[in-house]
């Protein structure tokens, strides 16, 4: 189909809708909003083509490849061409699920991500509310500080936090009088340290988004609540939180996704997964299996498991959006 003019190949049904005397403000959900440029069938696909080609080639195809690699024996020998790749079916998965370490890593990943999400949301929401209660100058100062934390690259954030908590040269141990206590030695203190860094660099997103959401709440509502003598906590719980639910859903899910995928912080701060792998999370585990141990098949299988877990989260998210009657 190669239309020569704008209207040449447009189906007649669409041509009818092209009339310029469209009632204003009457745009219903779909199709009810004919736009001068918005009718032709193949045009959106033309605009979408570059994005679809890139996503197909560099996202969809690799996902397919990931699944493929996960059912082959794929180690250094196969990579260098020394041995032919052998189809092993679900053997890699059996290996993964049969490995005790996998389950402990999975559990650690879920708990760590959950702790990060909860802390990030609590800090972000609390500070967003705080932002609405102060005048412009303190607000700007806090906003800039948060932007600074937000802008800090994960690698530099990780090294700086390590430096702050360094047993020999860091100020934190000095101030707390902890001597040369090593934060990265113990499993939980190492996770705690990474958690602090993750919260530090990810709460600003929550804060800024929720703050923007609060600003969109009509001031009359808040004034009414204040007149009725509601406490700040009550205002949050009974007025703001319900009105901000769509915003909170979005930031929660984004946080889950980001915190479930934490890689750089763990890798840098715990030196690739901690002593004897005590601080491994799924992502780092998959990476180590693949690139450090050259067990590409195993690594891919773990990758597929990670992908499926995140996919499940996404489906829950879409469910929630649907239930709220959100239009995409």
């Amino acid at each position, binding site marked *: 189909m190669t239309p020569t003019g704008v209207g040449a190949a447009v189906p007649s049904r669409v041509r009818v809708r092209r009339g310029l005397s469209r009632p204003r403000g009457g745009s219903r959900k779909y199709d009810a909003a004919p*736009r*001068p440029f*918005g009718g032709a069938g193949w*045009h959106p*696909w033309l605009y979408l083509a*570059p*994005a679809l080609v*890139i996503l197909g080639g560099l996202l969809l195809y*690799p*996902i397919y*490849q*990931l699944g493929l*690699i996960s059912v082959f024996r794929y180690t250094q020998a196969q990579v260098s061409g020394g041995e032919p790749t052998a189809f092993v079916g679900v053997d890699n998965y059996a290996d993964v699920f049969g490995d005790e370490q996998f389950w402990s890593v999975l559990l650690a990943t879920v708990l760590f991500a959950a702790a990060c999400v909860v802390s990030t949301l609590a800090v972000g929401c609390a*500070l967003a509310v*705080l*932002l609405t*209660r102060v*005048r412009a100058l303190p607000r700007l100062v*806090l*906003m*800039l*500080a948060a932007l*600074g*934390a*937000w*802008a*800090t690259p*994960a*690698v*530099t954030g990780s090294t700086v936090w390590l*430096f*702050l908590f360094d047993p020999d*040269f*860091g*100020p934190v141990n*000095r101030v707390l009088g902890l001597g040369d206590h090593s934060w990265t030695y113990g499993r939980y203190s190492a996770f705690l340290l990474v958690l602090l860094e993750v919260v530090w660099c990810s709460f600003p997103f929550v804060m800024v988004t929720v703050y*923007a959401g609060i*600003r969109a*709440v009509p*001031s009359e509502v*808040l*004034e009414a609540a*204040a007149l009725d003598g509601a406490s700040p906590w009550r205002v949050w719980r009974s007025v703001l939180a319900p009105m901000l639910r*769509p915003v909170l859903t979005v930031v929660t899910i984004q946080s889950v*996704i980001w915190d479930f*995928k934490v*890689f750089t912080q763990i*890798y840098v701060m715990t030196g690739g997964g901690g002593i004897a792998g005590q601080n491994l999370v799924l992502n*780092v585990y998959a*990476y180590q299996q*693949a690139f450090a141990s050259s067990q590409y098949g195993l690594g891919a299988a*773990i990758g*597929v498991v*990670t*992908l499926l877990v*995140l*996919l499940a*989260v*996404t489906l829950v998210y879409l469910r929630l959006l649907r239930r709220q009657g959100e239009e*995409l």
Partner: protein
Amino acid sequence: MTVVNLVRGFVRRPGRTAAEAAALVIAVVVAFPLYWMVLGAFRPAGEIESGRPRPWTLAPSLDSFRRVFGQQEFGRYFVNSLVVAGSVVVVSGLVAFLAATAVTRFRFRFRTTLLIMFLVAQMVPVEALAIPLFFQLRNLGLLNTLGSLILPHIAFSLPFAIWMLRGFVKGVPEALEEAAYIDGASRVRFLWQILFPLVLPGLVATSVFSFISAWNDFLFAKSFIISDTSQSTLPMALLVFFKPDDPDWGGVMAASTVMTVPVLVFFVLVQRRLVSGLAGAVKE
């Protein structure tokens, strides 16, 4: 609606001083790591190792920066990082603009399906895909080139960019489109001469995210630039100073500072649009 009104309605005055004090204290705490980083970068040799970390330095020195820029080809890594991040921002920005226009200004079959796919695509763990991408890039002969960093990052930053740009494209009144049509402007002309300039501020805000993901990337640089270190990027250069047993903290902090400043500048410049952009992306 003004914020002043909101504040007036939301709070009783006596609480405000306390709230403002808290805000300032928190700001100091949040900014402290960054301050400590810059301070560490400017400390003279020996002061860090003295074991008495004071929150100031009496004799700022550029030694650490000299060491960073002297050792290896740090300047080159900086340029490499800029090239990667710059290419990703420009390409993904343009592609996302077109795609966002398609999904907001047109109604067509599979539109909702596509939107959901863009959302799902954001969930894909980039790290897991490093394995297949490694082989894919090897087969394309792109390993050890900057292309091996640029291409995957374009793909991974696209879904979020499209998602966020939607709000901005939607914000352009339809009346403009009608007016352009009546005035006889072509579709292409409308797209690039009317819509694009109007969406540009939003595009800039969106590009922050693409910029950051490319600028910060550590995994791909580590996995795909394996033998040709001249193609390396900043995060890898930084980690040269960061030996787990005996890190050169001065060097690490100086390199970290050099790496953080461009992002910081970018962020502060687009700060305002970022806030409105997030509000727009979220309000849908």
